[in-house]
């Protein structure tokens, strides 16, 4: 009997211990353990970092080979393995990891509010300022606005500032719309007249990305609109009664009613892209990274006689490029990483900021590195990709850079309310004033304390 009792007691204890062990955290001392295992075998420092630029994601075409190039260069010393995560919810995943003190060694992005209000003030990121001082060849490449934005009052630099700017404009299919006009040099009214009854591939689902880009350009074309958008970088916009916004929304409504491609209402970005690449729309707004979709290698995704060679690109009318240079960069290093992990992370940053890698990046995804002296080979290759050459030609000192409207309004309004309100604007249920009122109401509710 006594033995049975002891056995039962042991079993109960074992069940409890197993349950608690299974349910409890890893208890890992290393901050990077949960996000990606870190191991050092035979002198090789290996880390796993979560990334959305993998698999079918448009960014994977350049990023995955870039990581491979890094692994080859540092073979026997460092190795990075990518953990594939979907782009939707990627920032949420990072937040969860931060809450568990399990950020990966190298952290790819995260949304601005989270970085500014949570990550940097709480010491979760490694200070890159001393490293940048030791590497002037890298620091000199960085965008001045970005470097200033990323440097806090005490001189710390937690986010690796950007060296490239990728002004977003729009793509147009010359087979459907054989215009000879210099589109970015037109005013918005002239552009709409030139457009005639050509169709634009809009999207209203998700965050209404394509519509948001056009709206941003329209706001920037209004008097005081560019300044209003730029001011939103520091203080999120919660009042949409600005005349520039109202006027731009009226113009957007016209386009949605007269020029929207079939199925624009309720379309996600992928639907809009499909509409453009199946000759159902002559115009789509998107960043230069979309240039890869028009390469012959992507021909399997074309239909209805669409040919990527017919596609041209331009910045928006009024020489507006949607880009925010005063922002955080793509990478930061977790402060809880070990010394050797930090060495690996710094080596990776150094690698991706080499002129060769920056040029490769620009060739793959477009954009400009204002402080980089381009090689002749790069200039020649850039000219071979029609849309990148178009955008490079349009990007001049006259270009007005403005942040996308979605980046200067509260996150929930950008991710949910904006797209949700667009169908009612398109079908005429809302006037521009109604739309602005709803946006104001949503933004104020989202920021109520």
């Amino acid at each position, binding site marked *: 009997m006594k033995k049975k009792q002891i056995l039962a007691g042991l079993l*109960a204890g074992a069940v409890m211990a197993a349950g608690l062990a299974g349910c409890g955290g890893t208890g890992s001392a290393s901050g990077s353990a949960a996000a990606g295992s870190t191991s050092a075998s035979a002198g090789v420092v290996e880390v796993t970092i979560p990334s959305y630029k993998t698999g079918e994601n448009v960014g994977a075409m350049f990023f995955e080979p870039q990581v491979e190039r890094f692994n080859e260069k540092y073979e026997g010393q460092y190795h990075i393995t990518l953990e594939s995560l979907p782009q939707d919810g990627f920032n949420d995943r990072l937040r969860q990891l931060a809450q568990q003190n399990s950020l990966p060694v190298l952290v790819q992005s995260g949304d601005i*509010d989270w970085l500014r209000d949570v990550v940097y003030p709480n010491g979760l990121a490694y200070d890159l300022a001393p490293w940048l001082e030791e590497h002037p060849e890298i620091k000199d490449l960085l965008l001045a606005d970005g470097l200033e934005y990323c440097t806090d009052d005490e001189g710390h630099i937690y986010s690796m500032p950007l060296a490239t700017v990728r002004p977003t404009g729009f793509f147009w299919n010359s087979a459907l719309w054989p215009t000879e006009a210099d589109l970015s040099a037109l005013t918005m009214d002239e552009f709409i007249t030139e457009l005639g009854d050509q169709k634009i591939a809009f999207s209203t689902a998700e965050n209404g990305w394509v519509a948001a880009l056009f709206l941003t350009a329209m706001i920037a074309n209004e008097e005081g609109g560019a300044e209003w958008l730029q001011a939103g970088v520091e203080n999120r916009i919660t009042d949409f009664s600005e005349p520039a916004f109202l006027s731009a929304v009226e113009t957007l409504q016209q386009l949605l009613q007269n020029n929207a491609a079939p199925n624009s209402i309720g379309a996600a970005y992928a639907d809009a892209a499909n509409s453009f690449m199946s000759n159902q729309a002559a115009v789509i707004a998107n960043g230069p990274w979309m240039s890869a979709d028009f390469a012959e290698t992507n021909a399997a995704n074309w239909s209805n006689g669409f040919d990527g060679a017919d596609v041209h690109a331009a910045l928006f009318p009024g020489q507006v490029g949607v880009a925010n240079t005063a922002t955080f960069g793509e990478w930061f290093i977790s402060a809880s990483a070990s010394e050797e992990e930090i060495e690996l992370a710094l080596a990776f940053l150094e690698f991706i900021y080499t002129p060769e890698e920056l040029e490769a990046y620009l060739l793959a995804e477009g954009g400009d590195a204002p402080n980089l002296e381009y090689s002749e080979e790069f200039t020649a290759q850039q000219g071979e990709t029609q849309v990148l050459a178009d955008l490079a030609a349009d990007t001049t000192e006259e270009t007005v850079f403005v942040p996308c409207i979605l980046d200067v309004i509260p996150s929930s309004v950008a991710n949910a309310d904006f797209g949700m309100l667009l169908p*009612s604007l398109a079908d005429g249920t809302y006037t521009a004033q109604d739309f602005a009122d709803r946006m104001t109401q949503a933004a104020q509710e989202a920021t109520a304390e």
Partner: protein
Amino acid sequence: MKKTIPRPPRAKASRLQRANYKWIYLFLLPTVIVFAMFYVIPIAQVFVTSFTQWDGFNAPVFNGVRNYVNLFSSHSFLTALRNLFLWGLVAVFLHVGFGTLVAFVLFQRPRGWKFTRAVFMIPNVISAAAWAMIYRFIFNDDFGVLNGIIRIFDPDFSVQWFYKSPWAFWAVTFTWLFYAVIVTLIVLGDLLNIPTELTEAARIDGATGWQLIRCIQLPLCRGAIGTSIICSLTARISMYEQIALTTAGGPDYQTMSLPILLVNAITDYRYGYANAVGVLMFLIGLAVLYVVNRAFRMDESDY
């Protein structure tokens, strides 16, 4: 009149029984700990932090009932409550009603009833998110099946079902309305458990088919129908995917729901506010449980 039997006084535990207490408590301990870790503590945390301003990372700061004041002065929240009420009515009368009707039909064991039951089960193995995507195609204005059929009769017909008022509310409703197999299985289970003596006695007394259903079968399925209503209503309280993947709450908040508001608040790092929404969802769930339990006298035995 219901007869209550007085409960006999509890006998004093013997020495042996008292000696076993420690084993009883020891074996209960893992369950109690798991229950506390995954139910009690998180729920308590949600309640406590709903009275704070909290970004989900830094320490919460007590702000009284500010989150609740903000909630009840929010247009989207009030619209979400109204939608929940309307969906609740649809769930009780149409969703559960349809599931119950199918159960009664299957109970008659018509030819092919087992096959029908299996087919009726199929939609349940498809996730709500997948159904939402399927319905986006069904209700698509340009190439959707529904408008395709309507255009046979009216070639100019055009409605964006998910994006046009008042259709959006019903379009979202259709993504779950007829998938009532859980209701059918629960009710059918109770129907099959009705003692045949009862039915036979009623028939001998001259009861017609309708009288049999109304006076014998329906009352004896009371508990199953109540359970189904609870399941259906709580599913409406937590309904997220069907809305997030179709209308995102629009147009004009006409399909807004409490979970959508909760997720939006988390997107804005307003965990205190999000938890206030969570608390209200919890309380509404409890109220549903209480009211349905009382209305259907679910704690009373039928046999």
